[in-house]
C-alpha cells in the first residue's frame, strides 16, 4: 500500500486530529482503501485539504487507488478555485462537509467529516506516471501546478526519515498545511516509519494549539520562519515542553539571529534543531543540516539527504568542482518531480525534469560541503543597470536595525516595506549607502505588517499592489 501503511503494526496510532479522531494503522489502511474504492483509477481529484483525518484518508486512499489528487488549501480563494476547476476539470472533489455544500454536485461518499463529489466533467487521459499535483508555493492566483511522478513522495519520505533519524516513537506536530509540500512531507515521513502524526488546524497563537501538543505529547515540530517568529513572540523558550525533542525548519530562510537563538536553545535544553531546505518541485526536502552542526554553521541548509545530490553551476551551466564555491544550486535525486502544468493537456506529459532540478537559488558551499543559500537568481532588480539583490537588501536591513522588512519593486524603484516608523529615514540612508545608489531609487513604506501567505512566504507582488500601486 502507498507509504507502506499496511506494513506497520496495525494497532499503533497513525493519525490524531483536533476534531477528536484517532486512527490506528490498521484502521487507516482499511478506511483509506475504502475511500480509494469510490473513485475511478486515473481520474483527477481536487482535494480541499485541512489537517484532519478525513482529509488524509482521501489523500492516502486516492493515491493508493491510482487516482491523481491535486492538493489545495480548503480555504483557497474561491475565484482561484473556480479558475482551477475550469482549467483542470477534475472528475471528483474531496471536501470538508461544510465546503461541499458550495458545489452543485451530489455527494457519492462520506467519511470522517469529508465528502466525495462527482463533478460533471469527463475523465480524460493522465500520464501513466503521474501521482499527484500541487500548486507551487510561490504562486498566488496562478493555475500552475507541479506534476509529481510515482515514487517521488515515497522516496522523499524514506530519505528524510533517514536523515532526521525518525522512528515509530515520534509524535509529529503537523501544523503546516498538508496541501503544502513541506507539510505533506512531514506527514508522509512519519507515516513511513510507523510514527504518530498529530494533525492540527489550531492557530499557533491560540491556547488550544499549546494545550493540544502538550496533551498529545508532541515530540517534534516543523515550522517556517514565521512559525518561529510566533514561538519567540510567545516566549516559548520559557515554556515547559519536556516531550518536544526536535525543532525543524524549512520554507524560507531564518535570519541569522533567529537561527543562532534556536541552535542555542536546543543545546541548552538538550533538544535538536535541524534546519532544512526544499521546494515543491523536489517533493519537499533536498537537504538538512545535522543537529550537531547547528551551533557552528549559522544559516546553513547542510548537505543533501540520502540518495540525493546537491551541486552548483555557473552562469554557463558548468558544474563547479571546487569544494568552496558559489553558484546556482541544483539537485539530483529520486524526489525530483516531472515538471509543471498550466493546462489539463499538460497532465499527459512525461518527465521533463529527468531527475535534475535547477532551484534558481544562489548558494555557497563551504569547505565541509555544507550549503548556504545566499539569494535567488530571479529576485534582482536592475536599478540604473546595477544588479541589486532584493533578498540581500532585506537581510542587510533586518540585521542592521533588527526590524521586519520586505523589499520588492521594479527596475525603476525598490520598494522597502518596514513596520517600524521610527526607522524610516535611517533605513533609506542605510540602503542607499550600502548599494551606492541614489536615494530616489528607493521608497520606504511604513506598513502595519509584512504580508505573508499561509506558509509564511512574503507576498511581494501583493505588497506592491497594495501599498505602492
Amino acid at each position, binding site marked *: 500500500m502507498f507509504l507502506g501503511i499496511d506494513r506497520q503494526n496495525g494497532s499503533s496510532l497513525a493519525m490524531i486530529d483536533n476534531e477528536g479522531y484517532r486512527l490506528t494503522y490498521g484502521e487507516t489502511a482499511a478506511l483509506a482503501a475504502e475511500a480509494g474504492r469510490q473513485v475511478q483509477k486515473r481520474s483527477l481529484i481536487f482535494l480541499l485539504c485541512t489537517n484532519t483525518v478525513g482529509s488524509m484518508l482521501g489523500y492516502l486512499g486516492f493515491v493508493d487507488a491510482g487516482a491523481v489528487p491535486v492538493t489545495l488549501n480548503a*480555504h483557497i480563494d474561491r475565484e482561484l478555485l473556480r479558475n482551477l476547476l475550469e482549467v483542470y476539470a477534475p472528475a471528483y472533489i474531496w471536501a470538508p462537509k461544510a465546503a461541499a455544500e458550495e458545489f452543485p454536485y451530489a455527494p457519492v461518499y462520506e467519511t470522517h467529516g469529508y465528502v466525495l463529489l462527482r463533478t460533471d466533467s469527463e475523465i480524460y487521459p493522465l500520464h501513466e506516471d503521474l501521482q499527484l499535483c500541487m500548486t507551487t508555493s510561490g504562486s498566488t492566483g496562478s493555475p500552475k501546478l507541479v506534476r509529481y511522478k510515482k515514487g517521488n513522495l515515497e522516496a522523499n519520505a524514506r530519505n528524510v526519515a533517514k536523515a532526521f533519524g525518525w522512528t515509530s516513537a515520534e509524535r509529529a506536530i503537523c501544523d503546516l498545511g498538508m496541501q503544502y509540500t513541506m507539510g505533506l512531507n512531514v506527514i508522509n515521513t512519519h507515516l513511513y516509519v510507523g510514527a504518530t502524526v498529530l494533525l492540527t488546524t489550531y*492557530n499557533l*497563537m*491560540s491556547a488550544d494549539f499549546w494545550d493540544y501538543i502538550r496533551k498529545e505529547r508532541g515530540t517534534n515540530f516543523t515550522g517556517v520562519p514565521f512559525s518561529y517568529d510566533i514561538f519567540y*513572540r*510567545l516566549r516559548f523558550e520559557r*515554556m515547559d515542553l519536556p516531550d518536544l525533542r526536535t525543532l525543524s525548519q524549512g520554507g524560507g530562510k531564518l535570519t541569522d539571529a533567529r537561527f543562532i537563538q534556536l541552535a542555542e536553545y536546543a543545546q541548552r535544553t538538550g533538544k535538536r534543531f535541524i534546519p532544512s531546505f526544499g521546494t515543491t518541485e523536489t517533493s519537499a526536502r533536498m537537504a538538512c543540516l545535522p543537529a550537531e552542526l547547528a551551533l557552528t554553521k549559522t544559516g546553513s541548509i547542510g548537505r543533501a539527504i540520502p540518495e540525493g545530490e546537491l551541486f552548483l553551476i555557473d552562469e554557463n551551466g558548468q558544474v563547479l568542482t571546487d569544494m568552496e564555491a558559489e553558484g546556482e544550486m541544483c539537485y539530483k535525486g529520486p524526489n525530483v518531480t516531472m515538471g509543471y502544468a498550466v493546462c489539463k493537456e499538460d497532465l499527459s506529459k512525461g518527465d521533463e525534469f529527468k531527475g535534475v532540478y535547477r532551484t534558481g537559488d544562489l548558494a555557497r558551499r563551504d569547505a565541509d560541503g555544507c550549503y548556504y543559500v545566499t539569494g535567488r537568481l530571479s529576485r534582482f532588480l536592475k536599478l540604473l543597470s546595477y544588479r541589486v539583490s532584493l533578498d540581500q537588501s532585506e537581510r542587510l536591513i533586518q540585521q542592521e536595525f533588527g526590524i521586519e522588512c520586505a523589499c520588492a519593486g521594479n527596475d525603476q524603484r525598490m520598494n522597502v516595506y518596514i513596520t517600524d516608523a521610527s526607522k524610516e529615514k535611517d533605513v533609506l540612508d542605510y540602503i542607499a549607502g550600502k548599494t551606492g545608489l541614489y536615494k530616489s531609487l528607493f521608497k520606504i513604506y511604513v506598513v*502595519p*505588517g509584512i504580508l505573508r501567505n499561509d506558509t509564511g512566504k512574503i507576498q511581494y507582488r501583493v505588497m506592491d499592489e497594495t501599498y505602492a500601486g
Partner: protein
Amino acid sequence: MTAREKYDEIFVKVFEVDKSELGSGFNFADVEKWDSLSHLTLISELEDAFDIMFETDDILHFGGYDNGRKILARYGVAID
C-alpha cells in the same frame, strides 16, 4: 481619541471589518480572518498603542473583542 476608539480602530484595521461588526460576537472561532498572522498583528498593535507588554498566557487567550477588554483592564487600560 478615547481608549475605546483606539481599541476599535485597531480591530477594524487588522481584520478589515466595519466597526459595527465589533462586539461580544467578534471571536476567534467566528472570524475567518483571525489567523496567526492577524493575531500577531493585533497583539503588536495593541502593545504599541497602549504601551504595554502582554504575558504569554494573555496573548494565547486573547480570543475575542470582549475578552480582550477584560485582559487590557488587567494592564490598567480601561476600554469603556
